[in-house]
């Protein structure tokens, strides 16, 4: 089985290389054989998918069959591992996750190659670029990180098992989501570079990749927040984001990808920022690869980075080559990317997108700098200096607040220029509402652990929280006013009630209104983040009947019990939770000892409500007196983060739905309407 897997990867490499070479000749050549040659290149790309899929399937089957003759299966699985985790074995180690990456890339390539009739030449170019990236991953899998390497010597009876931290349901879906996001950005990059290399006129590549980019962005968003939720639910430190290099690695392409999703609208609508967009899409692709380099090379220490491995050099070379190729094409063909219009006013939709982009890129650069700072300081000073959360927060929080301002302001500004009268008309009521809520939060009586009674002058974190909540309300009001105003126009023309009209409005321009829903989701997430200013925690030895008070909760230790399963042994701590003298719950944080890997891990118990999370961690026993230790965290508003993510994803899905045809006529007919032109209608 291992031999067939290895051969499938080797032959996939041959097919990919053929796709690149034949594809380039077919694109460049003007002779009659170019077309059939191009078709064979496309088919070789499709064959690559079949071969990589076969290799991945063989690895998964080997995991289910406990085939420990394959070294990868021995290192990442064991007989008693539950079935879903055996499936997850595919992406739980270095070689498998690279194979999974290659599989996703070939799957994206398959979809692209099957849809080639949209624009044969542009798709052929994109197919060649995707295959070139595929060649790199298949070279790695064939020569440097072989998933089908066989065990030497006698066959082991059982495997080492999966890392205990990864034995959590979300870990079955978190890596695929993240990888779908990382890998997916190769597609818009391939189209952008293809269009640039071919000197393709117009913005067709943007229209083709619009949905790809949104889908990819949705996957990456989902992957990042699943990772945050996993960290919160499994790692036991009470937080969801630690600015760990691996977390940063996923955030950087997300930031540039988000910037691209916004700035691309300027290119579509006004033919502006063409150079910027092509750099952004390249940066997103490049940062996704850089993130993989970061996690695979061991060059920077991280909780979940793999150990030092030689494949880091492969990634470094690939990054250097891809940057060089891009720069060469950019400087050869940049005359193609001249803007069709100039920025006419600082108060316009264009400038709001521009500032939004600058902020995203600034944040990305900060994260990049902070992530690489240990390495840079080592090179310059000779000793590693690691930067922590305060460094990132100093930049990230003000930038996030400014982005919230732009999220509120941007949709209400007109393209080209906005007058003072327009500003007053659109912003007066939302601004009054936001200021009123901020004042209300300041004058209400202080309640410990909640945003009421906030005194922003007492602590900078309170100031940030107050600003975040007030600006979130501003965004919510502007989004609501967009829906209401649009709904009212449709209602006036159709006679439907306002809610049905708003539904119709969304269906007529799913991209715009889906985007607004994503903005609302971001607001909900930000409110969740703002709650972190009021976090509390407490650690205490807890014998039978001992009490701990945290916030409005009283915890009483009831008992400690043991449990055993084939995969792990568990120790449970049982606590009764009281609020206002009344028992409201029983919580059971756990410590597990995984038998195959001989590692211990904690499994916190979390009681989530809309107000706050009560988060208990059974930390083990005091080595001096043997008393059990409990750590409790009270984290306000965390559930808002997870709700916000669902809203963001719902908005993304809505934005992917095709628009319905509009039927409401414009109030003013266009001055110029030639006989063959489409009617200019309102409603979308």
């Amino acid at each position: 089985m291992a031999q067939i897997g290895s051969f499938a990867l080797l032959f996939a490499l041959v097919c990919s290389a053929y796709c690149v070479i034949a594809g380039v000749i077919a694109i460049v050549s003007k002779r009659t054989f170019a077309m059939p040659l191009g078709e064979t290149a496309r088919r070789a790309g499709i064959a690559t998918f079949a071969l990589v899929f076969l290799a991945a399937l063989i690895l998964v089957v080997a995991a289910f069959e406990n085939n420990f003759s394959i070294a990868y299966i021995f290192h990442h699985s064991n007989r008693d591992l539950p079935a879903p985790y055996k499936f997850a074995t595919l992406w739980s180690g270095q070689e498998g996750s690279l194979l999974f990456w290659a599989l996703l890339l070939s799957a994206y390539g398959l979809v692209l190659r099957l849809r080639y009739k949209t624009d044969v030449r542009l798709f052929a170019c994109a197919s060649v670029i995707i295959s070139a990236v595929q060649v790199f991953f298949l070279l790695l899998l064939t020569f440097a990180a072989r998933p089908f390497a066989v065990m030497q010597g006698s066959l082991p009876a059982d495997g080492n098992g999966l890392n205990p931290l990864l034995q959590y349901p979300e870990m079955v879906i978190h890596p695929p989501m993240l990888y779908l996001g990382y890998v997916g950005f190769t597609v818009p990059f391939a189209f952008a570079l293809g269009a640039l290399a071919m000197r393709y006129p117009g913005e067709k590549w943007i229209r083709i990749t619009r949905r790809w980019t949104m889908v990819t962005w949705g996957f990456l968003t989902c992957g990042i927040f699943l990772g945050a939720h996993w960290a919160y639910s499994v790692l036991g430190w009470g937080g969801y984001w630690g600015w760990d290099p691996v977390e940063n690695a996923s955030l950087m392409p997300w930031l540039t990808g988000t910037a691209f999703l916004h700035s691309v609208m300027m290119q579509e609508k006004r033919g502006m920022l063409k150079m910027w967009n092509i750099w952004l899409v390249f940066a997103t692709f490049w940062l996704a690869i850089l993130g993989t380099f970061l996690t695979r090379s061991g060059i920077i220490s991280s909780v979940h980075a793999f150990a030092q491995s030689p494949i880091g050099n492969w990634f470094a070379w690939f990054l250097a080559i891809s940057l060089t190729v891009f720069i060469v094409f950019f400087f050869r063909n940049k005359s193609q990317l001249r803007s069709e219009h100039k920025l006419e006013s600082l108060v316009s939709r264009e400038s709001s997108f521009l500032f939004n982009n600058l902020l995203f890129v600034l944040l990305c650069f900060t994260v990049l700098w902070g992530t690489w700072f240990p390495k840079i300081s080592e090179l310059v000073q000779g000793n590693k200096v690691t930067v922590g959360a305060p460094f990132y927060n100093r930049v990230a929080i003000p930038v996030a607040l400014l982005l919230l301002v732009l999220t509120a302001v941007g949709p209400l500004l007109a393209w080209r220029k906005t007058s003072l009268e327009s500003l007053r008309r659109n912003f007066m009521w939302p601004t009054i509402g936001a200021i009123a809520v901020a004042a209300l939060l300041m004058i209400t009586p202080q309640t410990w652990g909640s945003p009421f009674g906030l005194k922003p002058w007492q602590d900078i974190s309170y100031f940030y929280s107050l600003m975040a909540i007030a600006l979130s309300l501003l965004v919510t009001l502007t989004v609501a006013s967009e829906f209401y105003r649009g709904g009212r126009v449709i209602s006036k023309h159709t006679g439907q009630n306002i809610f049905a009209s708003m539904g119709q409005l969304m269906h007529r321009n799913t991209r715009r209104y889906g985007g607004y829903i994503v903005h609302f989701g971001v607001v909900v997430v930000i409110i969740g983040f703002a709650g972190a200013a009021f976090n509390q925690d407490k650690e205490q030895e807890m014998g039978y009947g001992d009490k701990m008070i945290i916030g409005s909760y009283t915890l009483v230790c009831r008992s400690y019990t043991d449990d055993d399963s084939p995969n792990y042994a568990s120790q449970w701590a049982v606590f009764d939770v009281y609020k206002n003298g009344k028992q409201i719950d029983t919580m059971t944080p756990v410590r597990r000892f995984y038998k195959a890997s001989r590692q211990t891990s904690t499994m916190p118990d979390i009681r989530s409500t809309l107000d706050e999370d009560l988060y208990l961690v059974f930390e083990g026993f005091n080595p001096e007196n043997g008393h059990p230790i409990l750590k409790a965290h009270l984290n306000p508003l965390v559930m808002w983060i997870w709700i916000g993510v669902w809203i963001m994803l719902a908005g993304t899905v809505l934005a992917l739905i095709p628009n319905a045809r509009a039927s409401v006529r414009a109030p003013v007919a266009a001055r110029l309407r030639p006989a063959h032109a489409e009617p200019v209608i309102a409603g979308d």
Partner: protein
Amino acid sequence: MIWLVECLLLVVACVLYVFCLPGRLFVGPATTRSGYLRERKDAIYENLRDLNFEYAAGKVPDADYASLKLSLQDEAATLLAEIARLEKSSATAVDRRTKA
């Protein structure tokens, strides 16, 4: 040795799929300057639709609406003129070829 046979079958299947092409291949339309201009025209019409809708929704004051609409219409007029010129010249070229 069975794996060798299986690998050989895999190669044969892939080679047959890649190189046995159907008689007629899909070519698709060529990319032209007028096609690009039509794309731009569609974008401007979409901007006009957005502007009309925002005006109807009360987001854009009268003066702003008039000036923004006028500039979009001017832009559309320039594009339409160039499209018409390109179509005329291509039609003339076809006529010449037919007469010849």
